[in-house]
């Protein structure tokens, strides 16, 4: 059924259609509307039987999820940013134990300085944690990916994070096609755990493992993520059959056929990029776009195949490894190793800075003119950066950086910010 609803509510309804048995919630923007929606459904009796726990921290949220998943319940939670970092120890534990928890990550910057707006720093901070990470381009895809996520997680016995851009998607009212319960039931079988805490067949889970087997346990996690590289496109194909639309998969190419230049990106910025690509194609440029939808496992072969013909590729990412540069760019460059194509990293949209078509056009003009630096910060305000660097060079007690910069641009943080 076509509905005009907020992205968060669309996700909440999709999760409810997956018949979760335990949901744990802790508030953090921009994830709050999702769990609020689910909480209302449980309390109102439309989502039943389901236990909804208001926990005291994200660390507890993931820990409750670990317990309920190990006891055989389909388990869901959601978080963002500081919340993800607060639960990190349990995030690693959930994947290490092989528990198929599904979690929405409403992507948001990580402080300090505290910032509630969108970027992908939170996802990337957990790049190596053993969770599958899927990225949604749109609200429709976010909704669809959650249904696929439960299927994938439970099949692989691995946790899955569905990453959707905070505010840009979570708070946007868009048209979505909401599936029926019958469709979801046809696609998603009841959860059949590989391991479960059951008095009829007692097992110990979470034993201490020493050097004699630790590497093997870790390798098996990698082997399973490698298998997921096959299962993700298969599940997406089955999804398309049942629901009649495409969503998910490893990567999605856009106008890449004869492209000399490709932009690589993940998440909602792909939509903006499509319009930019269309405009440049209309002007006669051979340019295309590659959307990475599965960030972990990283589809090295699929990326390499998609970009096989290009001479230039630009990884446009909302994440940043301080002291190095791009995060996603590392993986793309690995996929492209041995190929002649020239790679660029563009860091954009950190802390919610808008990525406008005009900026993207300017950046691509630079690519075409062969003057784009290997590492570029899109729309960086060099004036305030240089002023602060000069300040620090000229005096010892130069004061707090963020406050200096804000004073320089004569602007206070957005008043509606509620951290």
């Amino acid at each position, binding site marked *: 059924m076509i509905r005009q609803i907020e992205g968060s509510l669309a996700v909440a309804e999709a999760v409810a259609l997956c018949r979760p048995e*335990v949901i744990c919630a802790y508030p953090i923007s921009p994830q709050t509307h999702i769990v609020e929606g689910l909480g209302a459904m449980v309390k109102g009796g439309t989502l039943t039987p389901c*236990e909804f726990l208001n926990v005291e921290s994200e*660390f507890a949220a993931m820990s*409750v999820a670990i317990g309920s998943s*190990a*006891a*055989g319940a389909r388990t869901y939670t959601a978080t963002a940013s500081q919340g993800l970092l607060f639960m990190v120890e349990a995030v690693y534990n959930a994947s290490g134990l092989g528990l198929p928890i599904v979690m929405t990550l409403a992507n948001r910057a990580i402080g300090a300085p505290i910032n509630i707006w969108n970027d992908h720093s939170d996802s990337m901070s957990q790049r190596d944690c053993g969770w599958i990470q899927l990225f949604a381009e749109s609200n429709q895809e976010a909704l669809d990916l959650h249904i696929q996520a439960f299927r994938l997680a439970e099949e692989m016995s691995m946790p899955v994070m569905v990453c959707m851009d905070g505010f840009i998607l979570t708070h946007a009212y868009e048209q979505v096609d909401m599936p029926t319960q019958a469709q979801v039931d046809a696609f998603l079988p009841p959860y059949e755990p590989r391991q479960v*805490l059951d008095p009829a067949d007692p097992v110990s*889970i979470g*034993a201490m493992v020493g050097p004699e087997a630790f590497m093997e346990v870790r390798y098996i996690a990698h082997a399973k993520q490698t298998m997921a590289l096959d299962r993700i496109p298969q599940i997406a194909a089955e999804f398309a059959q049942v629901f009649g639309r495409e969503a998910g998969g490893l990567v999605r190419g856009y106008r890449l056929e004869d492209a000399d230049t490709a932009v690589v990106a993940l998440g909602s910025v792909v939509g903006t990029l499509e319009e930019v690509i269309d405009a440049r194609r209309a002007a006669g440029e051979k340019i295309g776009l590659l959307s990475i939808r599965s960030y972990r496992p990283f589809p090295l072969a699929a990326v390499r195949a998609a970009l096989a013909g290009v001479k230039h590729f630009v990884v446009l990412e909302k994440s940043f490894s301080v002291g190095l540069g791009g995060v996603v760019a590392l993986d793309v460059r690995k996929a492209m190793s041995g190929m002649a194509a020239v790679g660029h990293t563009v860091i954009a949209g950190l802390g919610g800075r808008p990525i406008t078509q005009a900026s993207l056009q300017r950046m691509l003009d630079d690519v075409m003119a062969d003057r784009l630096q290997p590492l570029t910060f899109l729309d960086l305000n060099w004036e305030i950066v240089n002023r602060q660097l000069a300040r620090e060079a000229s005096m010892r007690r130069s004061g707090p950086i963020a406050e200096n910069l804000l004073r320089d641009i004569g602007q206070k943080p957005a008043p509606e910010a509620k951290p």
Partner: protein
Amino acid sequence: MTQNIKFYQTGTFTVGNRLLDPEHRAVQASIQRDNSLTSGHRACQGCGEALGARYAVDAAMRATDGQLIAANATGCLEVFSTPYPETSWKLPWLHSLFGNAAAVGSGIAAALAVKARKAGLERSAVRVIAQGGDGGTTDIGFGCLSGMFERNDDVLYICYDNEGYMNTGVQRSSATPPGARTATTVPLGPNPGEEFGRGKNLPLIAMAHEIPYVATATVADLRDLEAKVEHAMSLHGARYLQILVPCPLGWGAASCDTIRLARLARETGLFPVFEAKGGEITAVTKIRHQQPVENYLRLQKRFAHLFGDKGRPDIVARIQAMADKNIRRFGLLEAAE
């Protein structure tokens, strides 16, 4: 001359099983006990925690007819019971992290509640315990524990209190008593060992949550411990049991003194043994013959710096004052006959 024999053991639920009818004997005295934490684990000789865990979990198994799941915090109990690929646990058991056993317990209980409703039952026949050491309870796991209490989740949390971080080599926790030497409270300076005026009393904090049941016990009073576990399992909601479990290694005590130390901790008044319901104390185990704290302290090397030539009688006196305060506060002394 005839003398009236007083069966103290019967009245006080100590180990004197043979004086009781078979049906009143301890779970541990029965060959039908579950041995939930069975032999082969790697605990030190005389480990109070191993003893306490076996007593408590076997009693919970008996109370639930074997329908029990345990969540376990990181710590000695976890490490010595599950050296890969072996396990001493005969019940379904999950170790997740050091600071989250209570939340993991909440998650298991939530899963069981949903499964029960799906099966058309009001509540699950399978019950949940979460357990950890004092560090995993009073310090790093405190947030999760308080959350579990506050939500009144259907979990019995058992804290095995050996008054320090033993698994990592005997460091101070917020359950370490004043004067005690640990690796991070060394016996140097004007206030050797753990300082006075620090630490927290978790049973009282648990009571402040007004949960259905809070109790303390020691490994010296087996039947009392078992009775408390059994009672706890007859209730629903959040329940808390703190068991004093002497640690020969960390306390610098003889392995054969574990039970004696646990008994002395109670009989000095240093470790009050009581029960509370809904935030109010409902029963205390009385002290028949109050022991001076010195009798307890002298058996432990962690207090050795308080005695001898360069001893600190002033500190011993302060510890005695603490015991006396507990005795007054909890009404621990039996009225003179």
